[in-house]
């Protein structure tokens, strides 16, 4: 429970290949309840924030805004072998804990999971000394 690690959000990014995506679809009936159970585990551990799966990358659209006018093309982005297929967003105490959960994600051969820390100031910053006065005052004036 190191200070700099407290209350950090991590995203487990599902990176499937065409083969693993096909395997997921083929084994969906078996995988779905496992995934449901996994989310239940995350919820009971108090670390679950959100999870979503993405539709078939072939149904996607890429909007290229790097030029003067946006260019819209059908299909997945680039020629990548590994595609972003969905994510789990977790609120955990450390990167190691995020990795430990990632190891437990129900999956299929060929799939990979990227673990990334969510940046931004919606985390609790460390060292918020002095807030006691603010809180005491807010309380005394009914503002909390």
């Amino acid at each position, binding site marked *: *429970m190191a*200070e700099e690690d*407290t*209350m950090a959000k991590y995203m487990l990014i599902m990176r499937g290949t065409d083969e693993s995506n096909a395997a997921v679809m083929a084994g969906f009936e078996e995988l779905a309840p496992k995934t449901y159970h996994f989310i*239940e585990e995350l*919820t*009971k*551990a*108090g*670390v*679950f*924030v959100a999870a979503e799966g993405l539709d078939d990358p072939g149904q996607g659209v890429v909007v290229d805004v790097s030029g003067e006018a946006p260019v819209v093309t059908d299909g997945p982005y680039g020629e990548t072998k590994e595609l972003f297929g969905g994510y789990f967003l977790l*609120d955990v*105490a*450390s*990167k*190691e*804990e995020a*990795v*430990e*959960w990632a190891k437990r994600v129900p999956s299929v051969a060929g799939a990979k999971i990227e673990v990334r820390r969510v940046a931004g*100031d*919606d*985390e*609790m*910053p*460390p*060292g*918020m*000394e*002095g*807030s*006691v*006065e*603010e*809180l*005491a*005052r*807010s*309380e*005394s*004036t*009914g*503002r*909390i």
Partner: protein
Amino acid sequence: MSTADVEAVWRIESARIVAALTRFTGDFGLAEDAAQEAVAEALVSWPRAAPADPAGWLMATARRRAIDAIRRRTTLKGKYALMAVDPVVEDEIDPDRIDDDVLALMFTSCHPVLSREAQVALTLRVVGGLSSEEIARAFLVPVPTVQARITRGKKTIAAAGVPFELPAAYERRERLSGVLSVVYVIFTEGSTATSGDRLVRPDLAYEAIRLARTLAALLPDEPEVHGLLALCELTAARFPARLDPDGTPVLLEDQDRRRWDHSAIRRGMDALVKASTRGLGPYGLQAAIAATHASAPSVEETDWDRIVVLYEALGRVAPSPVVELNRAVAVAMASGPAQALAIVDELIALDRLPGSHLLPTVRGELLTRLGRRPEARAELELAARLCANQRERSVLLRKAAALT
């Protein structure tokens, strides 16, 4: 595997391991000791050879240690008959019972035979998986103090013969309020420390939120559990805006509301909806007040009438002079200072908050708004004399001086 990896597995698994062991052995203290021994062994052996199934390794090792301890005890006492406990080894973990086990663990850790300090220490240690060092650091007490609280707590539970089981339905509601208040004590200690130089301990506030989420997942039909979770989420949502860059506390009216954690607000609102199925209890009502602030773009545009109504309701279900004082401030915002002053004066007449600087602080501000400057100044000076906090006192004195 590094120490951090061991800690990560322990964090995820500790409550279930201790809970399952307690059920196997019927001895809460023994289970906790055995689990601690297992994690100590993991810290030594995993860096050399990581197990394929870390959670299973911890459970198996803890179970062996528990059995060793039982053997030692029975040998010491010469009661070999107790060896009959051995079939425990063959027992497999029943996953359907784990949830109830963890819940029973929370009720055991927060048992009313324990002091509040022991309840807090045991909950953080046994359910949260925190070490004595982490708990000591969070509460700014020496490590031996935490260890003593935990040891005494376990002995008290054993001496009182507290059974390891979920309380009966009729008893649960009553006991649950104790569990909720322990979680809330941990949260408030994390968001506003009662002593020491580090005044906010986000790690502790986070641990409380995690415990509240776990409780909400295990007891989805108890509205007040969701109410407590909502209150914690909505309060913690403001943490990022509570200090300006140089570390000075920022008042609610001056906070940059864009910096509030909006995903925490959304989670808090969701929990509040679940809390309001059968009318709000004390935690739900406080959460509803926090939600009213959270959904307002500014102090001026806050729905103060709604906050007044919520404080009135809170005053009925959980009467306290502080609630009454807060209601007075909300009334001042909604309907003007004169009505609020009447509430404050009644609190003073009944001597409901003796010696507190809060009453004269609020009275002074109300009198200021009413233009009764000499009286306001006297109240603020009185408040400053009663106030124990240096920084707050200087604010009060500055305000008083401005009224001359």
